[in-house]
């Protein structure tokens, strides 16, 4: 275990930072540019995991297991949230026969 930790710690921390920043930006652009609700959903998951990665990296480098515990909680909650989100998407699809967010315009003044 400590061996594995040492290997990880040999990789400089800023690499993880760059990776997760890149992942996060990909997620943001995915959310902003795509019109398919399922893709947007996946992009949101990408952002989530970018953040998770960051947490785990810091947790390893500072030898504080709190960050990892936190990640587990985020995953569990995210799983629940995904199921709700997907259920909503299914309902939308049943009503509109489409998951294109441009179709979803009826909710306004």
């Amino acid at each position, binding site marked *: 275990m400590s061996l594995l930790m040492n290997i990880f710690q040999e990789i400089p921390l800023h690499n993880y930072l760059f990776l997760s920043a890149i992942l996060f930006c990909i997620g943001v652009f995915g959310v902003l540019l795509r019109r398919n609700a399922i893709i947007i959903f996946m992009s949101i998951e990408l952002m989530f995991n970018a953040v998770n990665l960051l947490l785990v990296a810091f947790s390893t480098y500072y030898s504080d297991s709190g960050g990892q515990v936190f990640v587990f909680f985020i995953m569990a909650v995210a799983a629940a949230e995904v199921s709700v989100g997907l259920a909503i998407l299914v309902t939308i699809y049943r009503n509109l026969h489409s998951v294109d967010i*441009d179709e979803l315009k009826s909710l306004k003044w």
Partner: protein
Amino acid sequence: MQLVYLLILLPLIGFLVNGLFGSKLSKTVSGWLGSLVVLGSFAISTKYFLDFYTGSLAAPIDIKAFEILYFQNISIHFGILVDQLSVLWLMIVTGIGFLIHVYSIGYMHDDENFSRFFAYLNLFIFFMLLLVLGNNLLVTYAGWEGVSLCSYFLVGFWYKNESYSNAGKKAFIVNRVGDLGFLLAMFVLLYYVGSLNFSDLKAEALGGNIPSNVALAAALFLFVGAAAKSAQIPLYTWLPDAMAGPTPVSALIHAATMVTAGIYLVVRTNFLYDLAPEAMQVVAVVGAATALFAATIGIFQNDIKKVLAYSTVSQLGLMFLAVGVGAYTAAVFHVITHAFFKACLFLGSGSVIHALHGEQDIRNMGGLKKWMPITFVTFLISSLAISGIPPFSGFFSKDEILAAAYEHNIGLWLVASLASLFTAFYMFRLVFLTFNTNFRGTEEQQKHLHESPSLITIPLIILAALAVVGGAMGIPEVFGGTHWMKNFLAPVVASGSGAAHAISHSTELMLISIASIAAVVGIAFAYFRFVKGGALPLKDGEEKGLQKVIYNKFYVDEIYNAIIVKPLMTLSSLAYEIFDVLVVDGVVNTLASITYWKGKQIRLLQSGNIGFYLIMMVLGACAILGITIWQL
């Protein structure tokens, strides 16, 4: 000790059952339920009365139940006081109350709101019991307000007729003026004496701890309250209008019980009045003036109930005269005999109105004794009693008041005697025009003339019997009696000025003879004018001169309208037009239209386009991030 709670709560239970489930009960059930709860209270009252009567209960029952108010060093309890004075009132309220409830079963049987009527009557009895049983002014005040409220409900019982519901409002609003007086009296007593308990107040007063100017202020304020409730000048105008209510209501509330609450209050606080002779002077003068004034108006009224209403005002004036000259016992005595014969008169008039299907104008009656013998006889007995013919009950009580007035001031005696003369005249004018000579109504009415059912006549007979023998409670020494009532009430009004008759027996006999002769003269005059002379009251609009002024009740209502009601109306409509419409409504409407106008612009942001929302969200997050970094 706990029995007294049951006494109060029984009518409340009747009210709740009739009020909540009345529409599901049959008329028989709801009427008898309403009557029987009052009978229950009557039974308990009788028990207390007998306890005091036989002397097995000498000291008053004074219960402090629970605290209502507490501030600084003053604490006010809900408390009950049963003593000789309240027990007499209990007997009248529940006893006559029960008879009138029974009468109402017969009288109101065609009314669609039968159970509502009984619910209100029960509620009234409840508040009246609270009024006479309170051991401090605040509890009495609660009952005082409650009976006002019930009076309002019952006067306006047939609320679909606008003038009836206006009469209810008038009764309520005029009473507010008196309530203000009552409140001020309580404030004065709380501030200077620190207690509202009757027993505390009495102890302080007898101990000489109440300065005379405080007593004067409190006594005068209390009298304002009493004057409104008991219809004295200048606040009497509501009572004649209150006749708009059903006749049992007039008998119960506006003759026998509620309107005597003012007398009760003054007698209850007699120790304050003893400290303030000026206040008693005011009470006596107002009482005498009211007695004569109302009696004068009564002479020319043509509505059977209006005559009785003015007669009530006049008799209440006599009672206040008695209180004002310190003859508290005489006042209470007259309250009781008056309750008997006036309730009987009102119920008798109700029986007549019932037989004539709502006709109240005595010009359209006449000769009814042929069809309604029981009503006639009871009405006649009560009229003899109210006129002061010996040996009926009114004779004894009125004589006592007149004697007390004579002792105090011969002018007051003269005014009161004149009022009694007038009373005898207008009462027999009423009797002769209603029951003697020939029937003057339509043939259709004549065909349906009938004696009322026994539910109506039995209460009449009982009340008439009481009106005959009621005087036995206070047979004066001059006739060999011991004046039971004076001894009975001695613990309550023992203080100072209840001095024994200073006048000699021969003077008293002379006064009695004068009063009786005056009454006979009044009756004879009415007999020769209306039976022998066959005179009839003039038709509307034919009156001239003084008669017209009196017929129109000295235009007091019109004067009040012109100097109080009209200016108030003008003021309120000005306030409405300027302050309410322009300022209050203006501010609210402007705020609303600004919100509407801005909202119309801002709501365009809610385009419904999810892509747009997402961009805004990301930009917002970036902005928050930017601000956070910039602030580091």
